[in-house]
């Protein structure tokens, strides 16, 4: 696609901006920082209300337990997790130079970071460097919960994700919520900035988290949660605020990815108990860990199981074992699949990782715009025009703009046509197969003919005198997308 040229164009703009502003140390530093950032992995922030399950989901995405979690409110600082050769933590204070901290890890448990006396209010962020393949393409940012009883804690997230003046430090956001609440909507709206390409709903994915609890631990909880996610996906309000909504049971996902042999053994032992006794134990969390029961596995183990799987997870595992699963690897894989994590990762890949360049370009151009706004000077007018040229010229931005307009109903198309338009614009992924809704179709000839069909259909729509001005404009953008698709397909 024209992606490489977009990257080149944006780098060019950044370089020219640095030249123009070389006499202003603040602006230079800011721009240089963005040049470096442009080459870094995508920054994905995980936000949401307190106890929405952010740290757990982060651990599930990384595949290891690194972010600390707890029953009470836990994360109080914005913490970055990025790929590195060696584990380490750097503290960035609000004032002064960053410094290294000691980290300590008990076995396979979460990291314990010692702030060494620095008060929480004096810390801007922590950056954890951790060797992990999952972090190679994406840097994950864990944020404190919104709606915390401590106003300062919530404010830290607000300041990080929606700073007053500057564009946000994150490229994309995973917003976790347990069900739609006034606070969630307000926060999503404030994250919806007015800047370049108005792309905010396109770089936000809403996650219905702790999906197993939505169904109060029933076996069909996840199906129920999936139905609710579907309903939210079609909700008018949410469509303008997030790209899509997906239900995920974070704890289950994390445990599935890190299932241990001794845990599997404990589960099979439980499964071997007489049915009536097992049912009685699974009734409530308290009953499951009752010490007075002369049962194998011992209370300690049962407590740990409950911690790791949750009551729903244990019930589901029993169900899966009864259905015939006999291999720990298979059990783990089933747990992960049912949790919705696989689908989430596919979504992240399609929506964020593939669009990485686009999202980064957007962040970079926002940064340049900020400098132009803060320190206007005559030499910068050329620069401003160039920024506008990139924005207007790059087809990716046009696609993004139109996608946003379609979702926020600024541009109205008939319903069935709108779904097709969003798909062709890359709403479900940038690959030709995704754009044409032909997932799994590998025959290039078929894909090509489908693309040609779409192209002619939309050309007709663009030229039809019956189409209103808006529809015609939208159709023209879709036509360009089809043309770009055809150009990329092998002849």
């Amino acid at each position, binding site marked *: 696609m024209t992606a490489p040229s977009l990257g080149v164009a944006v780098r060019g703009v950044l370089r020219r901006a640095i030249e123009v502003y070389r006499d202003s140390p603040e602006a230079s530093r800011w721009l240089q920082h963005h040049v470096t950032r442009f080459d870094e992995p995508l920054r994905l922030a995980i936000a949401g*209300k*307190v*106890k929405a399950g952010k740290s757990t989901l982060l651990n599930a995405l990384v595949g290891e337990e690194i972010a600390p979690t707890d*029953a*009470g*409110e836990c994360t109080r600082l914005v913490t970055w997790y990025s790929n590195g050769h060696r584990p380490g933590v750097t503290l960035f204070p609000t004032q002064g130079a960053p410094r290294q901290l000691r980290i300590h890890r008990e076995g396979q448990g979460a990291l314990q970071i010692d702030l060494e006396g620095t008060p929480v209010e004096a810390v801007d962020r922590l950056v954890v460097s951790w060797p992990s393949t999952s972090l190679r393409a994406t840097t994950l940012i864990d944020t404190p919960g919104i*709606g*915390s*009883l401590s*106003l300062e804690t*919530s404010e830290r997230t607000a300041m990080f994700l929606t700073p007053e003046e500057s564009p946000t430090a994150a490229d994309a956001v995973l917003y976790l919520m*347990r*069900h739609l*609440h*006034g*606070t969630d909507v307000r926060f999503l*709206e404030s994250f919806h900035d*007015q800047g370049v390409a108005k792309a905010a709903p396109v770089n936000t994915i809403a996650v219905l988290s*702790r999906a197993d*609890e*939505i*169904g*109060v*631990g029933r076996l069909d*909880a996840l199906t*129920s*949660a999936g*139905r*609710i996610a579907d*309903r939210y996906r079609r909700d008018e309000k949410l469509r303008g605020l997030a790209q899509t909504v997906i239900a995920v049971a974070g704890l289950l996902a994390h445990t599935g990815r890190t299932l241990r042999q001794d845990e599997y053994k404990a589960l099979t032992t439980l499964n071997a108990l007489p049915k009536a006794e097992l049912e009685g134990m699974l*009734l*409530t*969390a*308290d*009953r*499951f*860990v009752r010490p007075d029961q002369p049962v194998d596995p011992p209370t300690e183990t049962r*407590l740990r199981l*409950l*911690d790791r799987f949750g*009551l*729903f997870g244990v019930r589901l595992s029993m169900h899966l074992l009864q259905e015939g699963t006999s291999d720990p690897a298979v059990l783990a894989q089933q747990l992960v699949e049912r949790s919705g994590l696989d689908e989430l990762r596919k979504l992240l890949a399609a929506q964020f990782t593939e669009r990485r360049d686009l999202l980064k370009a957007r962040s970079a151009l926002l940064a340049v715009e900020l400098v132009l706004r803060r320190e206007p000077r005559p030499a910068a007018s050329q620069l401003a025009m160039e920024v506008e040229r990139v924005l207007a010229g790059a087809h990716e931005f046009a696609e993004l703009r139109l996608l946003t307009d379609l979702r926020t109903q600024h541009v109205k198309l008939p319903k069935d046509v709108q779904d097709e338009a969003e798909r062709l614009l890359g709403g479900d992924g940038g690959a030709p197969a995704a754009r044409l809704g032909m997932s799994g179709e590998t025959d290039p000839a078929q894909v090509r003919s489908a693309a040609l069909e779409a192209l002619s259909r939309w050309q007709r729509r663009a030229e039809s005198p019956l189409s209103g001005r808006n529809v015609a404009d939208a159709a023209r953008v879709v036509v360009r997308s089809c043309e770009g698709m055809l150009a990329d397909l092998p002849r």
Partner: protein
Amino acid sequence: MAVPAAIELVDLAIKATTAYKRPDLGSRLQQTRKRLVDPNVRVLVVGEFKQGKSQLVNALVSAPICPVDDDIATAVPTLVRYAEQAKVTLVRETDSGSGELQQSERIDVPIGELARYVSEAGNPGNTQRLTYAEVGIPRDLLKSGLVLVDTPGVGGLGSAHGAATMAALTGADSVLLVSDASQEYTKPEMDFLHAAMQLCPNVACVITKTDLYPQWRRIVELDRGHLANVSVYADMLPVSSMLRLHALRTQDKELNNESGFPDLIVFLRDKVLAQADELDRRSASQDALSVCQQVTTTMQAQLSARTDPEQTGALIARLEKAKAAAQELKSRASRWQITLNDGVADLQSDIDYDLRDRLRQISRESEAMIDEADPAEVWDELAGWVHQQVAGAASANFVWATQRTRYLSEQVAEHFAMAGEVALPEIQAGATNSMAPKVAGLAQPEAEAFGFGAKGMASMRGGYMGALMFGMLTSLAGMALINPLSIGAGVLMGRKSLKDEKKRLLQRRQSETKVAVRKHIDDVQFQVGKDSRDMLRLMQRTLRDHFTTIAEEMQTSINGAVQSAQAALKESEAERNASIQNLKAELERVAGLAQKARALAPAQRVGVGV
């Protein structure tokens, strides 16, 4: 239950009033009796979305009444009370506009169809404009007058539901704040609790879904800590509705104990019902005592006149003075009336000022926001923000007004009591001074008469706030957006450039929006101001009538005493002796009744009784 004893006592007292020919006293007793027979102890179940409120109510009455589902949310409040036969009634109350609720439409529906009317799925945003649903069900728990109210989830104080629930709290006898065991209290929940405690001090915190969360004990501890931080000490009741329903199905006593519901039921019985019961007993006792006292006055005077005829002249003179004092109590210049009238006037202007001040602040902030943005782009956000702020301001103003009103009525009662004591010490001869406690008992039970309860339910339909909110919807179509024709014309004429035209239209949009916001705020000020004025007027009238009636009763008693004292002068020796015997016997009977009344009253607590 002591309520049957109270009813018995009141019946006896009513018989006495007929016997002693005092129908004026009898009518007040009839009112008391009506309240005793249908106590109506209202327990509001409140909390944020999906915390388990409806399931809690279902588990308490062991019946699947309130609709429960993963995706369902309650949209309309549901009252659950005792009835011999199970039935469901929908109630739609329409405001006639004069501040007093006029029509109340009641529609019976089949039991299984409740979900269609009270859930978000069946009745989104309460488009059917129902005020509440009433479910009658034969259950022992509800027999003693307990009424459980399942409310729509509060989405933070600034939401429409939040404001409406706040208004309903004034008519509640107790509030159960429901939060599940998955996490400790959040800021919106603590804010709500704080506001709720100011309106209804009898609040208990219920932690639900303890079956699902192994860490629930820790959560309860954390929550207790949060409450202690703001010096709130409320009962904490961890429960599991699921376990309770399971226990009821399998008749398993052990499981029922584990579910935590026995403690909850004990709370409802011992704290809520008992307190309401205490109030009932106290007011019945006081009413009966007051009757005894009045009747005794007359008879005592009659007795004195006959046993000591020489002193009759002096007695009559004293009684005439007392008559004058009672007349004084009735007059407009009496201290309590002045307190009442001045107090109401002051309160009125204070409430108005407070509301105006809050709204003016919002107006200023919104104008600042409008100046910085293009209304066409941020319309939804702006409208949402204004609605939320206005609802919050009206709520806060309402809470504050309610507290001040209660305080004022207590003050008036105190002044009346003081004046009464000073003016009529003679009357108290032989009887305990029950004047002060009687009037202090006025406050809580009369809340219904003030219309708090009724109005509270009406406002919960959301129509109160809802109607105001919808009033602000100026559609974008009406706004000055770029009209291609006008642009074309202007550009052709060479007079205006596109940029100028855009700027002009933006400014026009901004001023139109400011006007719309200002108009909305004015509407709210008007409506809310009128409602608070109505409430105050109602309170004023009620208090005035109540105390005037008491003063009149005293007057009648004294008149009766004067007349019979004069009549006694004309009696013959034999008649006199016979009368004395009669009177002594009657006095003993009345003293017996008074004794019963005193026995019924709960021990007086230190400080002011409720």
